[in-house]
């Protein structure tokens, strides 16, 4: 982990929360008693980062400290401790590329090459201010490795080609589809389910009450208890078609 320092020049002199954020601030502060307001420091820093184009400037950090009546150094400690607080400007779409073991085994190194080629060095912001990237530790989507997080969305099961395509679309303002970039739903097998495909598993026909010999005799099942499942009960045999959406910056 490299040294983390505020970009004082890019941070300017002032920061103000957006007016619509005030409600969220009140929500987080409301969770803690009046003399323990500093407990809300991480949520407030996070909100400040959201309101400041995805990174935490020094004036933004001071604003949080002032609101919570904390010494600046105490907030500074928190802001530098957690790498999710970015102390330097990032692009409109900030790519957090997971480089931890499962992703690395599944080709994260090649994704890194793509980022280097398409964007540049880590934390470098492209001239059009649209893209930047950094390597992060595990984001908890190992089963869909390799993956990246772009702003608030995961893009999983990436190949150099699919990541390159996503970056290209983001650069030109086109819509991209979060989630797995191969033919699978969430973490289900690629190409559809290969086990537990028997429909009778899910229609309720196998549901029966079994009795253990040394248990007291169970009451007779009532007709309601053996009723069929509702017609549109969720199963993992049905596949949802991925929908395209604009991801939030």
């Amino acid at each position: 982990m490299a040294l983390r320092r505020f970009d004082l020049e890019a941070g300017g002199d002032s920061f103000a929360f957006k007016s619509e954020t005030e409600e969220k601030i009140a929500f987080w502060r409301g969770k803690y008693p009046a003399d323990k307001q500093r407990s809300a420091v991480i949520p407030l820093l996070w909100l400040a980062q959201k309101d400041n184009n995805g990174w935490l400037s020094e004036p933004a950090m001071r604003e949080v400290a002032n609101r919570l009546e904390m010494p600046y150094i105490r907030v500074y400690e928190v802001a530098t401790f957690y790498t999710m607080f970015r102390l330097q400007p990032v692009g409109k779409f900030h790519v957090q590329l997971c480089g931890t073991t499962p992703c690395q085994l599944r080709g994260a190194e090649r994704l890194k090459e793509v980022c280097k080629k398409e964007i540049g060095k880590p934390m470098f912001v492209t001239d059009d201010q649209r893209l930047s990237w950094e390597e992060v530790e595990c984001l908890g989507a190992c089963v869909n490795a390799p993956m990246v997080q772009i702003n608030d969305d995961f893009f999983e099961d990436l190949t150099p080609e699919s990541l390159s395509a996503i970056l290209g679309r983001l650069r030109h303002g086109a819509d991209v589809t979060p989630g797995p970039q191969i033919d699978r739903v969430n973490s289900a097998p690629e190409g559809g389910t290969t086990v537990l495909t028997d429909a009778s598993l899910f229609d309720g026909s196998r549901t029966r009450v079994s009795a253990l010999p040394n248990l007291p005799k169970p009451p007779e099942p009532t007709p309601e208890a053996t009723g069929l499942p509702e017609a549109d009960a969720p199963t993992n045999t049905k596949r949802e078609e991925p929908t395209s959406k604009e991801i939030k910056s």
Partner: protein
Amino acid sequence: MSDTFKLNIDGVEVEVPKAYTLMQACEEVGAEIPRFCYHERLSVAGNCRMCLVEWEGAPKPLASCAQIVGDLRPNRDGSPPVIRTKGAYVEKARNGVMEFLLINHPLDCPICDQGGECDLQDQAVAYGRSDSRYDENKRAVEDKYMGPLVKTIMTRCIQCTRCVRFVAEVAGVEEIGMISRGESAEITTYLEKSLTSELSGNVIDLCPVGALTSKPYAFNARPWELRKTSSIDVMDAMGAAIRIDAKGDAVMRILPETNEEINEEWLSDKSRFVWDGLARQRLDRPYVRRNGKLHPVTWPEALDAVKAALSVGADQVGVVAGDLIEVEQAKAALDFFRGLGVKNTDCRPASAQYGTSGVREHYLLNPTLMGVEESDALLLIGTNPRVEAAVWNARIRKSWLWGNLKVAVIGEAAELTYPYTHLGTSADALNGAAVREFFKGAKRPMIVAGEAAACRSDGAAILSAALSMAQETGAVSEGWAGFGMLHTAAGRVGALDAGFVPADGGKATKDILGGALKTVVLLGADEVDLSQVGSAQVIYVGSHGDAGAARADIVLPCAAYSEITATFVNTEGRVQMTTRAVQPKGEAREGWAIFRALSGVMGKVLPYDTADELRALLRGKAGQNTAFSGRGYAPGAKGVSALIAAPPAADGGFGNAPFGRAIADFYLTNPIARASRTMAECSALATSLDTAVAAE
């Protein structure tokens, strides 16, 4: 449930309170526990892991500083838990910790100022390996700016966080923190701003390695070359215990010593870093002004000149003693001038209204510095302890933080590092209901008046009202003398005790300097307003060329506090003695000896030939109880009967003019500090910070 717990430490059975930490318990049986992050006066961090001990049956060694004894449990057979602080297991654990600490620690001891007094060095010798198995690159950390006093070499930092805890808990300014984490962790001030505490120098002592060292002392000396002298500080009226480290005839540095009743083990920045002022602007020979310029002369010539200047009639001579005057000089000067019939003698600032009632308790800090820890309600009248007695302010903060002290202030609403009720800016507030409300239910009320309240024309009425308030609120009762004055000058109480006030019909400081007299003698008095002296002949007796010497017609050089063995009485009335650490500069003499010599020239020989004879006179005959009889103890509540008596009558009431500041600039309160470059730098920095804040 009993409050104590039995332990078996190194084969010795010991019963200790349950609240003890394991480290304290181990020390109870005399075991030596190495440590870096643990410090008696700071909260427990438990992050250096050097204090590991073995608890028989526990899966891992325990960090003894963070383990509360009450949380241990006896063995299954009911016998006390077995703790070992020695043996192969503990050795191996400490050896491993030490190896980790040294992985990223540079091997630059030969160029490190901490060398020779470094905890890490000592403990590496005692517990470390002879070599390192680590052959990767060591990490390097950027040095940080922490102001003109603290030099940082952050690569040496072992992240014990003592400095972080000190500034947050004791100094009360949260300015140092540990940023980032893991291998990137760094100690820094916020955006490398200068520390704004008056106690910042203490982080140098606290730092167990050479990461934080003294900037003015950098590369000046090695600890084993220095001659160490225990002495007393005179930068404020607390009389903190210090150690003066000298090499040859130069003071190289000043460090605090432990005195639980005064400074615990802290020292203010002014006391610690003033030493370069002891080598600058020194008066090292007598001078006489001829044709508008000061010319160096010999002692006999100077004494003859003084004789001529004093031959103007006793009522035309006035004597003002300054802030740093030692008792011996005050006594000798007083005896000398009284022998000449001079009545105009004063040791107090202009317009001071205390010290003449003849009751010592009226001008002492009777509750004592340590007494604030017993108090539960403290009222500060016209005093800002943060600048007037910085170390005591830390003790007030401690009592507020860990005890149940609440504080109220009448006077300037300054930042004191603890919250307080601001009752008003002028003495009017003493009549208000708020102050009575504040003391309601207080068992040990404490009222402290400062010079800003006492040094004004209505000061007597204010002090009288404050004492009445103390009587009304129960601040003075048998066994608790909760009323006192906080002085700003080290020499003041001693001079008052010696009787250095105007005799009957004599003039006080303001009138002495008002231009009506023909000869004015200044005994190191530089803090007084000399603009009205007019055409009077001015004789200056002092150690530094400052305001007084600049105006003087005759200058007699005398020794500074590091160069004399002399008596000082602190604001509590505690008699203490400095010890000569270095020789006086040039031809400078001890203050009392100058007046002994003058008395010979004037034909009125003083009855003592040595300082010891003078001190014997001060102490009085055997069995006689004078202010100077005892040494090292504060009278405290012994004199409470004098406070219970009716307060001295004061003419008229008091006005509603707000209290000013007794000290305008913390760093520049006396000639020694004004001669110090370090203090000048600190002062300039503090002023610029103040202005920046005001401009916002």
